[in-house]
């Protein structure tokens, strides 16, 4: 029988606290849901932050690569190999191998070093053409490594049609400056001398490490690196708002350039090396023979330097020097070439690609001579690697003179350019003398030359004098660059540096620094 008292209760006993239980259950479920949501959001926030850091760390790691390239460029001339780059190895207190750095104002750090091997264990000596730069970036504990495989200028090639990579970096000696005066230690000569008789127009960058003496006119696209000793003589430079600065660019001496060009050790005398017949190309000098009007291997005959034991290159005295004479003959050959009418005395001197050791050079206009820079290697079967014609000048005691029209054969072609490309001809001058590049006064119109002249010595003993005509119409126009202890101008002269149609840098140029060249690895 049911207890009647129970029927008065509005809820049975088992239902007591139901509301509380439901509320607690609701709270419990809500707590679980909230905890899950918070966990997910927290993770999502963390992942987002990781994404941000992962993006940022790549830029930081790349910054490390560029920072090291800059470091090498500033130290490549250091006589101590281990100071030319950052060697591998974990520094005290650091987590990773290399030098620690950062990008001021941005998050993260990088550790960077350069090695000679891919694995990053062998220090680079600053000479081996292949090097690796390793950089580890770190942002918020996230790390990323980037590695580049670079090559030094001189180790690469360009394609036959010149569409391939032509280095234009500063690391080659002629990639950036059209005119640079370096050292004024010799007497009181300034680094750059523009006398009142000179009118100089430069397409490209002009720079000096010391004084400019200017009373003539100097027009240039832009100027760089004018030192604190700069003296504003004249109006052109001051009108451009030039101000002095203490920064000095370091350049390799010609000695060191020669060592690097031929892969010689730091204690080797490069001129002794070049004096060995097998190490120079003096025997390749050819001259035109009248077997046809086109330049070919069969259309030329061998010429040779003087037999006096010195590597004298001159056309001023045929009885003394047989430079212009093919072997076994007594006189120069006659010929017609590129519109030049065959007249008695027209002589064509041809330099195939290679390195020529010259002690004294005197090529004057007195003998209707012309010089062909056979950049195309047409006389020796072509030059697919764009190897330039390089004059290495050392040892002679006389001043030198080049006062002849230059012509150039075009790689892959059959013709001759009267202007030529600056990348094909080099003069490395190491004498305590003056090299005179002058307009041929017997010709009319503009006298054009091409190529680059490099003349840097520890004691500032060299001078490059460039002389044009008395008017703009009779100017000397050099397509190329001049980097020398002292550079001096006379008359009307135009220097045309690197332009779209004037390649100045050649992949065979000597090593002056580094550049990013090939593989890029991020991991």
């Amino acid at each position: 029988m049911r207890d009647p008292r129970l029927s008065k209760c509005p809820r049975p006993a088992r239902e007591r606290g139901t509301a509380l239980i439901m509320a607690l259950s609701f709270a419990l479920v809500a707590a679980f849901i909230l905890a899950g949501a918070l966990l997910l959001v927290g993770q999502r926030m963390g992942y987002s932050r990781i994404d941000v850091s992962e993006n940022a760390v790549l830029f930081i790691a790349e910054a490390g690569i560029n920072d090291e390239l800059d470091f090498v460029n500033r130290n490549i001339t250091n006589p101590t190999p281990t100071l030319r780059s950052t060697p591998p190895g974990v520094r005290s207190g650091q987590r990773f191998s290399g030098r620690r750095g950062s990008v001021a104002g941005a998050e993260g750090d990088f550790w960077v070093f350069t090695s000679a091997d891919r694995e990053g264990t062998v220090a680079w000596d600053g000479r081996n053409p292949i090097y690796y730069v390793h950089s580890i970036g770190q942002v918020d504990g996230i790390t990323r490594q980037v590695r580049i495989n670079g090559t030094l200028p001189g180790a690469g090639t360009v394609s036959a049609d010149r569409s391939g990579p032509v280095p234009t970096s500063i690391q080659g000696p002629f990639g950036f400056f059209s005119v640079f005066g370096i050292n004024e230690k010799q007497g009181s000569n300034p680094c750059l001398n523009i006398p009142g008789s000179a009118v100089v127009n430069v397409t490209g960058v002009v720079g000096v490490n010391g004084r400019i003496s200017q009373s003539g006119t100097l027009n240039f696209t832009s100027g760089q690196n004018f030192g604190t000793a700069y003296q504003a003589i004249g109006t052109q430079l001051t009108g451009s708002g030039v101000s002095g600065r203490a920064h000095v660019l370091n350049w390799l001496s010609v000695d060191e350039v020669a060592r690097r060009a031929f892969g010689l050790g730091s204690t080797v005398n490069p001129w002794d090396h070049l004096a060995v017949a097998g190490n120079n190309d003096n025997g390749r000098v050819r001259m035109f023979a009248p077997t046809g009007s086109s330049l070919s291997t069969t259309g030329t005959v061998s010429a040779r330097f003087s037999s006096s034991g010195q590597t004298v290159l001159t056309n001023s005295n045929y009885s003394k020097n047989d430079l212009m004479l093919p072997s076994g003959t007594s006189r120069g050959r006659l010929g017609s070439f590129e519109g030049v009418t065959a007249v008695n005395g027209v002589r064509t001197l041809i330099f195939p690609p290679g390195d020529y050791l010259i002690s004294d050079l005197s090529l004057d206009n007195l003998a209707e001579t012309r010089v062909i820079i056979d950049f195309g290697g047409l006389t020796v079967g072509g030059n697919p690697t764009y190897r330039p014609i390089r004059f290495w000048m050392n040892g002679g005691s006389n001043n030198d003179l080049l006062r002849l029209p230059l012509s150039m054969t075009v790689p892959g072609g059959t013709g001759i350019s009267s202007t030529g490309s600056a990348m094909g001809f080099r003069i490395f001058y190491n004498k305590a003398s003056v090299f005179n590049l002058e307009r041929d006064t017997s010709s009319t119109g503009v006298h054009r030359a091409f190529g680059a002249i490099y003349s840097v010595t520890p004691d500032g003993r060299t001078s490059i004098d460039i002389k044009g005509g008395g008017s703009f119409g009779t100017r000397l126009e050099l397509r190329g660059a001049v980097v020398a202890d002292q550079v001096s101008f006379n008359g009307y002269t135009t220097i045309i540096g690197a332009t779209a149609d004037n390649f100045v840098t050649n992949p065979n140029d000597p090593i002056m620094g580094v550049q990013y060249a090939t593989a890029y690895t991020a991991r």
Partner: protein
Amino acid sequence: MRLRTPPARQRRAFGLVELLVALVLFAVTTGTVALVSQAVMRAGDTSRVLEVAGITAHRDLEMAKITGWANLPLGTVQSTGARATGRWTGPIRYYDGQGVEVSASQAPQRARYRVQRFIDDDDVSVWGTTYTLQPLTIRRVRAEVRRYPENSYLFTYGTLIVRGGI
């Protein structure tokens, strides 16, 4: 056996307390859910903004690299001496929540954050009040990202660009 039951008054009081506790608990739970939901939504929004902002900053620095060492703009001289410096401060760019750039005039209505690029040039050639690059000039490029309109700082991407580098 006789069942012992509390007085009717006691039974009613217990039910009321129970109900009140339940109501309070329910209210607290509901309020907490509402508050946390808002926080979750805000956090989710921040997370998304971080992602989109990161993409935009990444894009900005990549564009700077593509523009290249020689073509990035020049600013004003900051210091002279052995290693003179210059700085270029770029315009503020506004982006909506999807990472789409909006004009400055539309920014108050649509922008969710802003990106500004700075370029610090180290080792330049000074020409009076202006400067030019020299071969060894290092260009430090930063993209600073902030929320908009709060202007609260989010992060800065940065890298170095040198001539001939990557």
